[in-house]
């Protein structure tokens, strides 16, 4: 019997369902591991996104740098993290804060207090 894990709250286990839904989004994000692609993205974001078969919703999430939304739409965290390098750069904890919709310092305080 395959394991089930949908009961883990606030978690998008990156399984076949997510990987299928988000394949184009993850593929676009993974492409940014190449310098020439980062440059092309920076030059003309719309033209770059046209190369990938993103849904309208995924495209809007990328353009808005809405990481929580990208995750919900099937983007894998390690791939979409590469998008942060295109702008000012982000630590993983800052990416966490933006998903939580909180200032970075408040988020760090919250996770310190939340350790079980």
């Amino acid at each position, binding site marked *: 019997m*395959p*394991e*089930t*894990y949908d009961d*883990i*709250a*606030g*978690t*998008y*286990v*990156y*399984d*076949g369902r997510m*990987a299928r839904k988000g*394949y184009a989004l*993850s*593929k676009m*994000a*993974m492409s*940014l*591991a*190449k*310098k020439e692609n*980062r440059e092309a993205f920076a030059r003309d974001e719309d033209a770059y996104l046209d190369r990938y078969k993103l849904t309208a919703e995924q495209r809007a999430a990328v353009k808005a740098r809405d990481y*929580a939304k990208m*995750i919900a739409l099937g983007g*894998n*965290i*390690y*791939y979409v*993290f*590469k998008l942060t*390098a295109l702008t000012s*750069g982000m*630590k*993983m*904890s800052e*990416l*966490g804060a933006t*998903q*939580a919709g909180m200032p970075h310092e408040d*988020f*760090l305080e*919250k*996770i*310190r207090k*939340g*350790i*079980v």
Partner: protein
Amino acid sequence: MARVVGGIGTSHIPQVGVAYDRKLQETPEWKPFFDGYLPAQAWLERMQPDVAVVVYNDHGADLFIDKMPTFAVGVADSYPPGDEGWGARPLPDAQGDPDLSWHIVESLVESEFDPMIAQELAVDHGFLVPMNLLWPKAWPVRVVPIAVNVLQHPVPTAARCWKLGKALRSAIDAYGKDQKVVIIGTGGMSHQLHGERVGFLSRTFDNYFLDKLETAPQDLTQITRRDYMDKAGAEAVELIMWLTMRGALDAEVKRVHRFYMTPVSLSSAGLVVFEN
């Protein structure tokens, strides 16, 4: 004959690589963390291993879900640092040991493990951060990288990773050259990087894991992937790679060092050194 001298389990937090490159080791923020690795460095200096087998996972430097291998063994002469999106880190290529790599591949297949065989493999923070922490100046060892898919489910079970460690040990024991080998299992500890549960950390689970890893590791092979994710955070399923390391060691080991800190960046950091 080749001999497994011991094993090391360590987390591989990417921000540590950034701190290393910016030379922040002695700053108040980072010194307590980096100092935690000094006894491991001293042990390696004493043991003088010739080869490190590094069990790690790729996070989007060279492997992708277009065709994601569950297990992959590097058989290259050398392994360059990969570009994860910020440019490749200014580090040397890690020197491989293709003879041992191919021997391991042959032996694993005889043991009914069928890894992808990688003639070219760029390595990312999963591999490089542990190398920086364990040998902060230069890398005096040749390496055999073993990549495990812990990114796209279904990832292998904890029990499967343990058995991989057993098969790896048999392979090394049967290798004809007089070589000292250290096994490094990387990943984890508790962390969740995504979703509404982002930032989840568990000192309780991590310390349970570290205790059991030393004295009753087979108990950890019975934990489901779901329960690793539930108790330690979704991305902490990476801990299964520590079981490959432990599976390759003797049943009874001497604990040389143990270090734990949470949070570091967005994760809990752990380190254990076991001697056979």
